[in-house]
């Protein structure tokens, strides 16, 4: 008997489609038949069937709820709406059968069918939510639409610690909670509670999941919350699931320290005596990108063809970058004339290597027209400092290679006005290698000319 009831219960997801089918069919038939009214009898039969299979759906649903360990709170909405729908189906039957029931006489036919449709939709939706989780249907909607509809959206919580404020930051709310929120709560939170575990609130963390508590005070190795995270990605029960974004090493270290500290839910980092090194990775790093921010969309590969045909090598910096790197490595005869071919891509060049080519000072005016140029190599060419000031308008130029060129010490006066220049290489020029290593703050000069003087041990053979 148990087996039968369990089996019938599990057929619920199948059976529920019958009342839906009959009801929708009834509604559609009513609509197409509204003028001729030849099918009134058939409609009554349809609604009767709908009522009968609804009862069957209710029974199987109830058995499913009884046998599979659903909480009443989880299913109650679906359950009540299911029963109401079943009852309403019989009401529809009576309405079409005879129109003699007093209460039903007051309600018009169209209102009845619309009501029926609404009821079955609500019931179905509530059932779907039990199976797939709350918010399954609305999840694919864009964030803006969700917000407008008042649906809670998953918000990534940033960890905002700084070198000055980290000690006073609240350990749980400002560090642990955001970590759990960003990496765990989408499955173990208010919307879904897989394994009956909810990690978005203190209560949920403390009460644990279906296998009991997930934290053992001061013992990370005994705490499932921690051990599942550090287990190998392919191990059974590893969390987050391997296809999801994993916790970083730094996040794992913080969680460990938090569990070791007895998983406190209040108190600052300093009050729990935790070390700065744990939190330092979360401090904002003011890493400025080396290359300018890309505001252009990439040139199609085809448009680079004419550049390539000249023998110049041109390539994208990386797959999703519009910036180009151009080198004359395969074209030692490169001269001013060849810059014509480059004109269409001037705005895209961030790295240009013209070393070992036949260029001279006449190249400078052209170079001044490369607005995003960041790295320029003019090494082993005949250029001098005549006209190099043209480059001072390059607001992004950071590295300049002038090794083995004809520059003189005049170059430094001119370089001072270069807005972003960080490094200049002047090895192999007439400049003495003991010149100033820094011209102004942030501009480093590499004179090269390094030597490794002979030392006694060079000639000792053991």
């Amino acid at each position, binding site marked *: 008997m148990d087996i039968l009831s369990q089996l019938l219960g599990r057929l619920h997801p199948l059976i529920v489609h019958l009342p839906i089918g009959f009801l929708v069919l009834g509604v559609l038939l009513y609509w197409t038949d509204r003028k001729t009214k030849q099918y009134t009898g058939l409609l009554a039969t349809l609604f009767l069937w709908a009522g009968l299979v609804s009862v069957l759906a209710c029974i199987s649903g109830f058995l499913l709820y009884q046998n599979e360990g659903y909480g009443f709170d989880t299913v109650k909405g679906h359950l009540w709406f299911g029963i109401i729908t079943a009852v309403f189906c019989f009401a529809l039957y009576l309405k079409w059968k005879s129109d003699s029931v007093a209460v039903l006489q007051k309600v018009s036919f169209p209102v009845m069918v619309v009501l029926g449709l609404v009821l079955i939709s609500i019931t179905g939706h509530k059932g779907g939510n039990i199976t797939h989780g709350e918010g399954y249907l609305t999840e694919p909607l864009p964030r803006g639409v969700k917000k407008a509809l008042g649906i809670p959206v998953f918000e990534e919580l940033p960890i905002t610690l700084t070198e000055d404020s980290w000690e006073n930051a609240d350990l749980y709310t400002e560090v642990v909670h955001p970590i759990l929120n960003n990496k765990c709560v989408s499955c173990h939170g208010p919307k879904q509670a897989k394994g009956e575990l909810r990690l978005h609130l203190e209560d949920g963390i403390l009460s644990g999941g279906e296998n009991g508590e997930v934290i053992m005070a001061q013992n990370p190795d005994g705490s499932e919350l921690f051990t599942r995270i550090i287990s190998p990605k392919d191990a059974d029960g590893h969390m987050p699931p391997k296809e999801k974004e994993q916790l970083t090493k730094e996040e794992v270290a913080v969680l460990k320290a938090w569990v070791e500290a007895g998983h406190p839910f209040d108190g600052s980092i300093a009050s729990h005596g935790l070390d700065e090194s744990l939190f330092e990775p979360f401090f904002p790093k003011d890493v400025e990108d080396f290359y300018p921010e890309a505001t252009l969309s990439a040139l199609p590969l085809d448009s680079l063809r004419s550049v390539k045909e000249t023998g110049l090598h041109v*390539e994208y910096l990386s797959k999703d*970058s519009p910036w180009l790197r151009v*080198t004359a490595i395969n074209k030692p005869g490169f001269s001013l004339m060849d810059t014509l071919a480059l004109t269409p891509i001037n705005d895209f060049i961030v790295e240009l290597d013209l070393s070992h080519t036949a260029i001279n000072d006449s190249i400078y005016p052209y170079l001044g027209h490369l607005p995003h140029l960041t790295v320029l190599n003019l090494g082993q060419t005949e250029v001098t400092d005549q006209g190099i000031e043209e480059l001072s308008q390059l607001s992004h130029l950071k*590295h300049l290679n002038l*090794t083995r060129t004809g520059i003189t010490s005049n170059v430094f006066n001119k370089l001072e006005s270069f807005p972003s220049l960080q490094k200049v290489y002047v090895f192999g020029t007439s400049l003495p290698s003991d010149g100033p290593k820094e011209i102004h703050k942030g501009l480093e000069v590499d004179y*090269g000319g390094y030597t*490794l003087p002979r030392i006694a041990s*060079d000639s000792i053979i*053991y």
Partner: protein
Amino acid sequence: MSKDSLDRLIHEKLMREVQAQTRRHFMKQCATGMGGLALSGFLASCNFQNNGPAAALKKGLQLTERDLNPLATLPPPFAPKVKSVIYLHMAGSPSQLEMFDYKPELAKLHNQDCPQSLLQGKKFAFIRGTPKLLGPQAEFERVGESGNWVSENLPHFKKVVDEVAFLKAVNTDQFNHGPAQLFMHTGTPRLGRPSVGSWVTYGLGSENQNLPGFVVLTSGGQAPSAGKSVWGSGFLPSVYQGVQCRSKGDPVLYIDDPKGMSRDLKKSTIDAINKINKAEYAQYADPEILARINQYEMAYRMQIAVPEVMNINNEPDNIKEMYGVEPGKESFANNCLLARKLVEQGVRYVQLFDWGWDSHGTDHSTAVDLGLRNKCRQIDRPMTALLLDLKQRGLLDDTLVVWGGEFGRTPMKENREGKEMGFMGRDHHGDAFTMWMAGGGIKKGACHGETDEIGFSAVDGAVSVHDVHATMLHLLGFNHEQFTFDFQGRPFRLTDVHGEVIKEILA
């Protein structure tokens, strides 16, 4: 005739028939079926049917530059920190305990029995029974602003210590040279996988049209124990394998035209071949023919370009002096200078092997207080000069230099066959050894990882060979988990299922 003799006759006939079914018959009769089966499997495993340029053309797809020239450059998935790699491999494995990993405690325990707890469950190549601990056979000092330890064996290197980032606790699970070298360069101790250089040239191509993208240089008198597989292309197309060049004699074997073949004659030969190939292409439109035409032309250009770049004589004297080169000989110094020249010419990956670091203490040349010092002297000046020379040319900004062996050496004195040995040597040891990296994207003067007080195991910052590979690929603009090649029905990675980028040494 009795039934008995009839049975015998039938039996004999059957036997004869069976005997007539020779192996030759099997091969002959079944060739079509077997061959067809084998061919389909073979073609499928080469991705021949689906991904070849011919198939692409059939599908009306546009050909990429790659289809015509397999070394055409491709942009990396992410913005790279470096464009080229120079990998200095000390074949045989140098002793970290005489070079970078200073262990004063070990000096105090010198000549004492190694604790049993360290030996349990461990396998050594030659150590048997209970070996004695061997104190460091060199003086150490903290140098540079970073204050990292360097021994007296590397006096010149002290000058550039602030340029490099040390990994003090690299580990490998191999303790024999061949497998360990394969592991270090292909990500697995077994044969058949592509080397790092092949992965990189496959993934990025090479800029210089006249030079190979992946060049290998060896010194020390012997090739690495694992053979050429350490620069092999495995299942990647063979065009991506390392090209071994020599610093002595012809830089590439058979690069010169044979006697009586002038360069003009060679050119007209190639032109004639290409003409036929072009006619073939006009008829069949197979883009592989175009690729072949390209290859012929590249080989022709290489005949000029390779000897030119491989000639160190035209370098100025002060540069030759800095590296300590010995023209006409095969030396690590020459190879370091060549490495710089190659990288300067846009070669993607330069792999150096220097043989002679297997300091077992079996004789004078392998003693950690004698032969090892000679080896250190041979690399100290060149590798220091390499870093300085790259730096002064602005090349160190976009080149990664990696230094290491295939494993490390034991803190115990080797006792081959359980006997006391005349020289001081150390056995193979993979639990914790030192490597360093320098160049673009590397945190200058960093030191990651720490070994215990005798240098036996890692106590902090242990990294694996896979982590080293992941870091190298990261610097070149790849996510090592997404850089794959489909072979035998599944995607393969250099780091297999392992590897984490070593963020601690990144700038």
